């Protein structure tokens, strides 16, 4: 191989060789640099909490220091419980997710949209209700005692603006002024200053519920996609360049908030890159991770893949505490509700069922709880565009091996709608958050949810 060889062909050769581990490497001129993140030996270690082998490519010196530290810290603290927050964006229709099939009022308010009596499975805890046919996967988990339903969750005097109501849910209070998310404040209280993975937004953008005041949090599309390739840079110069990103992240900012944001992001990106190095595929053919169970195969929606990546990261022992992501689908169904709603709910429910099975297969199911929410439900009366307008109380779910599996609050019914014709709340989201903080995450809710004392805590765990 000539000294002036194209750096891509060398990188490719190395990456191919690693994929064919054990078969030896092509001859490389002594002194030639190795592309960062590519190692010559294959080393595996067992993430003790998971009992599952995670392959890490790289010699001891190349094993990311941060990963070891992160795992060490997480192990020292004992396996952390994880809360996964899944958002149905737009205000999902309660009266479709669990519908009062036999109620004549339902047929009257929803002459076009009412779901057929026979199409959905019966809901065992309230014989007035049936599951939306697209939520069969959730009904299955409910049958196993692994899903709790909140059939009327919200707050009194519901704001019908998407942005205001969503903000209330994200900050955990009916206040416009709070700028940190409720999970962000939890992380500010229990998190660590050098672990961006503790709060993980599985999105291309930060989920506001995770917005912290002090601690770093991260957002990624998937653990296997966090690389920083640069044309014409490799080897030790590439490693120095990536270190320099961290240096740019430590530059003084003179108190300028935008500069502080830019440097902070560079610092966190540099750290996160180290943490996720084991998940970045070594070539086009080798996946960054594999899953023990099948997930729904979708064309262009990343939701199942993100959950699969999350399970792999947890199995790898990465120190993750709170996760937030959007469910697939569009729930602001002012027009043409049936098709849009069914597609979104189906992919959401089937992906979450696969995620639960994945966690069970990996022995992680006792550590993870999923919360599904939306900013409000929809108006009881349909609007005539084959859709529904904004409403008040919505439907939420908790999923996990440890959840109690019993309804939280009751179905509010159609006979007692509020003055705007919306469902009334029978449980308060701040009470739910307080219970999640205290019973699941083991921290003081009063330090996180303003006025937490005022809200009754539902029993959420078995």
């Amino acid at each position, binding site marked *: 191989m000539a000294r002036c060889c194209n750096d891509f062909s060398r990188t490719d050769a190395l990456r191919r060789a690693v994929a064919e581990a054990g078969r030896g490497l092509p001859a490389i001129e002594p002194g030639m640099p190795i592309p960062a993140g590519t190692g010559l030996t294959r080393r595996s270690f067992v993430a003790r909490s998971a009992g599952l082998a995670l392959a890490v490519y790289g010699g001891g010196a190349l094993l990311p220091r941060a990963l070891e530290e992160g795992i060490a810290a997480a192990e020292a603290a004992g396996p952390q419980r994880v809360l996964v927050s899944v958002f149905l964006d737009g205000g999902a229709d309660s009266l479709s997710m669990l519908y009062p099939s036999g109620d004549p009022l339902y047929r009257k308010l929803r002459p076009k949209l009412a779901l057929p009596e026979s199409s959905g499975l019966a809901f065992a805890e309230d014989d007035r209700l049936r599951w939306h046919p697209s939520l069969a996967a959730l009904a299955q988990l409910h049958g196993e005692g692994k899903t709790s339903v909140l059939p009327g969750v919200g707050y009194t005097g519901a704001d019908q603006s998407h942005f205001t109501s969503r903000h209330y849910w994200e900050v955990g209070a009916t206040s416009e002024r709070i700028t940190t998310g409720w999970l962000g404040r939890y992380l500010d209280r229990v998190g660590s200053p050098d672990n961006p993975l503790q709060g993980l937004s599985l999105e291309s953008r930060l989920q506001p519920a995770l917005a912290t005041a002090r601690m770093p949090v991260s957002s990624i599309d998937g653990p296997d996609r966090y690389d920083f390739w640069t*044309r014409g840079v490799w080897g030790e110069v590439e490693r120095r360049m990536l270190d320099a990103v961290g240096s740019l992240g430590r530059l003084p900012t003179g108190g300028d908030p935008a500069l502080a944001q830019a440097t902070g992001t560079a610092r*966190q990106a540099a750290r996160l890159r180290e943490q996720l190095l084991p998940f970045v595929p070594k070539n086009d053919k080798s996946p960054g991770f594999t899953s023990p169970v099948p997930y729904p195969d979708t064309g262009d929606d990343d939701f199942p893949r993100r959950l699969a990546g999350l399970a792999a990261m947890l199995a790898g022992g990465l120190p993750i505490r709170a996760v937030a992501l959007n469910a697939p689908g569009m729930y602001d169904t002012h027009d043409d509700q049936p098709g849009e709603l069914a597609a979104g709910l189906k992919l959401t429910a089937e992906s979450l069922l696969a995620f639960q099975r994945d966690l069970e297969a990996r022995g992680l199911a006792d550590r993870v709880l999923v919360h599904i929410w939306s900013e409000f439900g929809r108006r009881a009366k349909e609007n005539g565009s084959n859709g529904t*307008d904004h409403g008040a109380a919505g439907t939420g779910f908790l999923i996990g091996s440890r959840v109690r599996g019993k309804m939280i609050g009751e179905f509010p019914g159609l006979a007692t709608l509020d003055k705007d014709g919306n469902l009334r709340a029978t449980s308060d989201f701040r009470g739910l958050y307080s219970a999640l903080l205290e019973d699941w995450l083991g921290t003081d809710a009063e330090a996180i949810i303003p006025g937490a004392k005022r809200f009754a805590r539902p029993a959420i765990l078995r």
Partner: protein
Amino acid sequence: MKEMPAAVYKGPFAREQAERLLWRAGFGPRRGEAEALAKLGLDGAVRKLTRPRAERFVGAAPHDDKGRALAPTDAGGHDHIWWLDRMVRTSRPLVERLTLVWHDWFATSLAGVGSQKLMLNQNKLLRSRSLGSFETMLRDISRDPAMLLWLSGTENTKWSPNENYARELMELFTLGAGSGYSERDVREQARALTGFDSDWRRGVGPHNFRFEPKRHDSGTKRIFGRTGTFNWEDAVRLCLRHPAHPRFFVQKLWGYFVPTALDGSTRRSLESLYRRDLQIRPVVEAILRHPALYTGPRMVKPPVVYTAGLLRGMGRGIDTTSWAWISGMAGQRLFMPPNVAGWDDERWLDTATFRGRWTTANQAARAFSVTDKQAGSISGDPQKLVAAAIAFWGSPTIRPHTRDALLEFARRAMQDANQSWKRKSYPVLVTNALRQLVAVSPDLQTS
């Protein structure tokens, strides 16, 4: 009531100030543009932006990766790069920047409209009204086909009112949440806004958008405490005459140009300028002349502004469609805002969008990346390597601390060159790495 005029910046107006103005009111300077603008002084520079001559396009026409002309109304992603090209090549950067502001203000998404042609028609509307009357703009946007599809306007009939547009008209476009309207006003406005219709035909999609009197609810409505048989034009006018509107308008517009809160006296001055006849230009001029823009803190550049600015600085045109998906990674795919509230300007930067910006910088520079073939012409002196990497992007202002960090990287990397092949190759690798580091530095992410 007579208000004092808003404060005007009185400090030096040199290259640095002109550079900031070009970033805030446009997409950053081309080579030499900041110096030329600085010579005009503050007033001359602001007028050049707000009262531009006829539009010219500078540089080569855009094309896709195979050299073909763009098909912005048809081909996926071409809508994005068609507009990005205007941002890069226009001689009227403020008009283009304001078009982006109005796209965010009246955030309409291709995801709900389903027609690039209708999205581009709306884009043309926003551009043509960008510095004119907000009343005309709001009237036009209220019957714009893309908006009628996006917020259910053509679904809103007297038999079954749909509140979608009525609510956002008040909450996001004119008054602000919780500003002097009730749920009843939302319902009554929805009735006033009934009557729009369109046809649909296979192969054509929605077309023939029109007002259809028989679909309109001509009954009496009560809106903001007034009673009348209001129609869509009244709905628009009632919002614009609502006492909460001027304040909402100037505060929201200010926020696109200046990151600090609008103080009470400036706000009142801007409101008074705006109230005269609801014109946009005088308010923008007052904001661009205000001291807070020049002496206040920096702003994070929106992703497309960052991208267009890199291309303007290096003098590269649009020659790839990759910008559409890369911009999406950085958090801003044009014509696809996340929702009707637009993009969140407080949260452009996180670890995912940082990687998008990294990819942006790599995409911009990779066509020019140097190889061992050029090794003979590149000096190994760290100082010179850093200076050349900054010049590559059109010589943006870099703070001394940042320059020191770049220099430190170059020095260490060159110290590693302890073999003959490394001494030859490392200036090449370091050149490519420094270009990348300059582009992702906090200095270039903000203005």
